[in-house]
């Protein structure tokens, strides 16, 4: 492919005490691509996301975004550059109504700048975004305190918060886990719509079937190392993957 590189991770290591979470990992994501990252529990997927989004600083190695070094950049600045992520463990503002949760990303410098300083009614924008990810407008879900919502809605709220920042690179950390099949089916079109809009997406998933259907490329991690990379079919054929991942999962 001749698409320009959006994100390049160069020989990155993260060591917690004596545990090596990410071990000399290098990878690349091209602009507009959907990269799926899979791997058994504890293989370093979420650590990798935390490193890219700046919540953790690597022990060694570099991360480049559009050619710019973001290895030591503060997380809020990374968001300002157009990378936004969701958390695997949802992090809503429990006491606020769901739509008020959206106000906080909509208040960020990035969104205000993109809107050219003429930002309209944030509440209305928040409700629109929530409808996009499947908060039914006629039901009152958007007005309920986030703490009272079921897991599926919290995951969607998490996605809506990330989309609100109009990112160029979107990192979804196990978005589908905790969602019902029907909910996953309703979210897949949302993701495909984002791709059509030209967003680069990294998805970390345990739900392989759904992931393989939408991902361009899959990367497999085990013990912090990349053990395979390629299309879904190529990855599934790999002996290393069968042993490390599918074997251990039965």
């Amino acid at each position, binding site marked *: 492919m001749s698409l320009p590189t959006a994100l390049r991770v160069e020989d990155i290591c993260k060591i917690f005490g004596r545990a090596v979470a990410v071990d000399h990992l290098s990878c690349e994501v091209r602009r507009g691509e959907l990269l799926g990252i899979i791997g058994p529990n504890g293989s370093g997927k979420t650590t990798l996301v935390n490193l890219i989004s700046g*919540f953790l600083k690597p022990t060694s190695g570099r991360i480049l975004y559009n050619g710019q070094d973001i290895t030591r950049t503060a997380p809020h600045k990374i*968001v300002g550059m157009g990378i936004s992520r969701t958390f695997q463990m949802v*992090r809503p503002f429990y*006491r606020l109504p769901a739509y008020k949760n959206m106000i906080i990303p*909509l*208040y960020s*410098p990035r969104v205000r700048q993109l809107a050219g300083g003429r930002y309209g009614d944030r509440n209305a924008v928040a409700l629109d975004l929530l409808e996009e990810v499947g908060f039914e407008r006629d039901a009152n879900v958007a007005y309920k305190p986030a703490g009272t919502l079921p897991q599926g809605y919290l995951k969607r709220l998490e996605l809506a918060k990330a989309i609100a920042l109009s990112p160029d690179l979107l990192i979804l950390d196990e978005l589908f886990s905790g969602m019902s099949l029907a909910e996953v089916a309703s979210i897949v079109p949302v993701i495909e719509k984002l791709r059509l809009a030209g967003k680069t997406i990294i998805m970390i998933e345990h739900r392989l079937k759904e992931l393989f259907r939408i991902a361009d490329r899959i990367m497999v991690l085990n013990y912090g190392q990349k053990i395979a990379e390629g299309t879904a079919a190529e990855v599934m054929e790999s002996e290393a993957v069968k042993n490390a991942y599918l074997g251990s999962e039965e």
Partner: protein
Amino acid sequence: MKKRRERIDRGIKARSEDVYALCSWREMLYLAGPRLLPAAAFLLLPLFLGVYWQKVMISVAVFALLAISWDMLAQTGMISLGQALFFGMGAYVSGILNFYFGMPPWLTIPAATVLGGTLCTLILMPVLRLRGIYFSMVTLIIPLMLVRIIEATKIFGGTEGLSGMTPLPSTLTEIYLVTGVLLGVLFGLRRLMETDYGLVLKGIRDNDRSVTNAGINIYWFKTQALFISSTIGAFAGAFMTHVYMFVGMPVFALDYSILPIAAAVVGGSGTLAGAALGAVILVPLSEALRGIGGLRIVMYGLFLVVFIVAIPEGLFDYIQRKYHQKERWVEIDK
């Protein structure tokens, strides 16, 4: 026959975000009453009180300001155990400006408010990264440390303090100045916390990583909240310097740190109005208990414990609920 309590909302509800038509004086009074009542009380009461209770009222307003300042920080996720730092910093700055430079109170009080707030913000800025109890520990220690510094270096009058400050023209001026500021701060901050800006601040308390992940620099917002809060505290201190006509080490005393927290807890934290209500109850109570001598602190402590156990959400929330909802017992047939 089992019974349960049924709660019914009263007829009208005000929504601040939407346009809401009020059709009768009764509805307007229902909404405005709870806001006008304390304002009227603060403005009219001084005219009828004796000198002693006028002084108590000044004390109430000062502690209400400190409690609001504490609550504002708490709503942003910073639990301060050192309101005395804000108070003392404002007190010393206005004292120094008056004592050494001969500035009149109408200059020293605003100057000390801004300067004291700035100094406190600068002092605490390096520890904004600390969360929870670690931040609290530092805020507790700093005022105690400043006292020892003043004692050891004999700076600004040392243990003697500075006395002979210019007083304010009259007790009524004092009262109206401090209650005016209190009402302004109370209603102003309550409004601020309801805006999108306030929402970001509350978001930091709920979940600071999530706010960071929304591309917002939480340290910058925390700094702003700290500045607003410490400015309020510094005003209280600067004002008291001119009321006492003295500034010395007691301004960093633990009383100014603990009593505002007690007030905010009794009144209900997270509402600002609760903090002020708590000060209105606790300060006169503490004065009334003065008669019983040594047991005062015990009674005071017991009162606090009873309050916290009986109404953990705070008095303000409790009254608010009673005001907006009717309650009645209904039978459940089984």
